[in-house]
């Protein structure tokens, strides 16, 4: 047993009794099974195929603190400022892994929609939670198991059948403090038949902290359900964030996801979609803007398990300085999944010679009547286009900015909510001009932070 695994065992013994619902036999069994599986699987190391490029066992701290309860409530506006303008969303804020509004852990909307903390949902509506929670049977690394052993909180969203929810639900996950926190949130989203929902899921830092966020989001879409899932990350350079998204789709359902990384320490977005019944569609978009020594990894896996399903992947990245990015797009077309259509594209711009970009399209096709394509590129900004633009009077900086902006916005053009799309394009613009940092989402002036927040893509040297 590796030292970290040993450490996790000790940690579990000391903190588990304080974790929510410890004595609930159902939860207890989940936690025990998680711990047991983690002991076997351990932390992913770079001999595992999908962890070859930057395994997390090199990055974790030797000890972590688990915050066992929520901090006393403070109004969110006092410490966090959301950069998405004019969006009419139902906001659920989590601070250091805990839902902040403990007085109202669960909101039941007039239309029957339920949203709030997962443990409250488990107490009040076990029938809506248990059939969906921790249903993933296969796992290739120990992170899912680690989450299952320690999960403390998370958002639960349930949309009954035949509802079109107009206002998006926004989950904001904030981390602050000086401790090395380990946070395991477990989110569960269930969308009923013919219903439609949009979620904006943001991960932000309020201070520099060597925290480990190991989050799991399970999504279940019933027949003809639609979910627009927007995952946004604006993290500090010391942070470790693992985002495990597991999606189960029934007949005719649509899942549209956008994974957008504005700033990262170490971010790994892992998304696995099971198209379990015919005519389901998954459209997965991603954008990463990485500089300095940031690391962004996108692991996408789509399992075509039924005929007549469609999946699309479009991931784009602009990588500067010594940043590293990795994309692994894996599509498995099972023998019964005839008439599958699966498209995949990953395009990258390298702004310096020091960046490291790896990209791997990976199709496994076991059916014979399918249409699949894939493509990966790593390149520079087009010199001919830059020259052409300069002959019209644009300075080099503006020309580069326009090209990068055009390149990046293609990845958010499919965002359905117009105000969100506009906000995102503005945020992209600000990020590219060096004006979007993790610090300007914070409402309190920095204290005890001697590191200047400098995240700009430096245009002078490209």
């Amino acid at each position, binding site marked *: 047993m590796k030292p970290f695994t040993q450490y996790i065992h000790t940690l579990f013994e000391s903190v588990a009794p304080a974790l929510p619902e410890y004595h609930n036999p159902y939860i207890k069994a989940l936690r025990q099974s998680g711990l047991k599986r983690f002991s076997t699987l351990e932390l992913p190391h770079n001999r595992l195929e999908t962890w070859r490029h930057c395994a997390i066992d090199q990055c974790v701290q030797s000890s972590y603190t688990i915050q066992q309860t929520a901090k006393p409530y403070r109004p969110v506006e006092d410490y966090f400022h959301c950069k998405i303008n004019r969006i009419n969303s139902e906001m659920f804020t989590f601070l250091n892994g805990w839902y902040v509004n403990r007085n109202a852990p669960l909101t039941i909307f007039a239309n029957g929609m339920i949203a709030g903390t997962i443990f409250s949902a488990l107490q009040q509506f076990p029938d809506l939670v248990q059939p969906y929670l921790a249903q993933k049977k296969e796992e290739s690394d120990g992170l899912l198991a680690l989450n299952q052993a320690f999960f403390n909180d998370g958002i639960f969203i349930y949309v009954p059948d035949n509802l079109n929810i107009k206002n998006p639900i926004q989950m904001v996950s904030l981390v602050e403090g000086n401790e090395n926190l380990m946070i395991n949130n477990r989110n569960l989203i269930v969308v009923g038949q013919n219903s439609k929902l949009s979620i904006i899921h943001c991960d932000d830092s309020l201070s520099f902290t060597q925290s480990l966020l190991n989050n799991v989001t399970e999504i279940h879409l019933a027949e003809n359900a639609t979910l627009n899932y927007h995952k946004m990350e604006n993290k500090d350079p010391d942070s470790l964030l693992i985002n495990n998204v597991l999606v189960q789709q029934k007949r005719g359902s649509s899942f549209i996801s956008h994974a957008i990384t504005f700033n990262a320490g170490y971010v790994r977005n892992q998304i696995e979609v099971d198209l379990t019944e015919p005519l389901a569609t998954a459209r997965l978009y991603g954008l990463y803007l990485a500089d300095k020594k940031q690391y962004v990894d996108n692991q996408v896996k789509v399992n075509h398990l039924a005929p007549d399903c469609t999946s699309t992947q479009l991931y784009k990245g602009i990588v500067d300085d010594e940043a590293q990015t990795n994309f692994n797009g894996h599509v498995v077309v099972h023998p019964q999944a005839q008439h599958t259509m699966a498209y995949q594209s990953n395009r990258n711009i390298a702004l310096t010679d020091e960046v490291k970009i790896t990209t791997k399209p990976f199709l496994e096709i076991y059916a014979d009547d399918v249409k699949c394509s894939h493509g990966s590129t790593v390149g520079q900004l*087009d010199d*001919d286009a830059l*020259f052409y633009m*300069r002959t*019209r*009077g644009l300075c080099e900086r503006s020309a580069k900015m*326009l090209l990068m902006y055009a*390149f990046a*916005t*293609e990845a958010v053009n499919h965002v359905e909510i117009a105000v969100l799309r506009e906000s995102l394009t503005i945020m992209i613009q600000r990020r590219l001009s060096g004006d979007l940092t993790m610090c300007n989402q914070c409402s309190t002036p920095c204290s005890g932070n001697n590191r200047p927040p400098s995240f700009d893509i430096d245009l002078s040297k490209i």
Partner: protein
Amino acid sequence: MLKIEDLHVSIKGKQILKGINLQISRGEVHAIMGPNGSGKSTLASVIAGRDIFDVTQGKITYKEKNLLALSVEDRAREGVFIGFQYPVEIPGVNISNFMKTALDEIRQYKGLEPLTGSQFLKLMEEKKKVVELTAKLSNRSVNEGFSGGEKKRNEIFQMAMLEPELAVLDETDSGLDIDALRIVASGVNQLKTKENAIIVITHYQRLLDYIVPDVVHVLFDGKIVKSGDKTLAVELEKKGYDWIKTEYESGKLN
């Protein structure tokens, strides 16, 4: 307004222009003709500021300034416009955004306030008419998926927007059908004033039926070997370039 003196240009050690002399005043239209490989496009590229070419000798004076010392963008801001033979496709960059950014920067250079959104849109509407540009085209990415004719029309539209003092149109007629040629040429004619000058680079006299030049130059082997009025273009069209070659080689031309 533009004075080119003894211009020698090479690329990767290969000499292309071997002593060009050319002088253009405001209000004039000059045509530069010549066979393939004579250096016409190189001349346009050097005026634009393409850095793959080395100017080994000679100078270009534009509005009393040393043009070769200006950056690519400053040449544009000083009123030089190049209509390219092969305009670049720029996926994702919307023509309106592109032109707004260009105009803003040119106006800033000249110490003028940027146009407001509505002033800009009004200007766009007005200039689109010059080349009968449809709304469909102007909402698209710069040149992306455009036909040859649409690209050239877009070049002249940009010229209309930027109102240059010196426009160099490099084979703007190539790849155009008869209707497109008429539209593009009529666009150029509408933009011609007493204050600006236009250099038209072309292979064919046909374009010059529409855009009537004051002077026609023949570029051959990196030099201007013959200049004349518009009848020279007609003569070239009839006789081809062989007689130029013969006369040049026999030393009649220099």
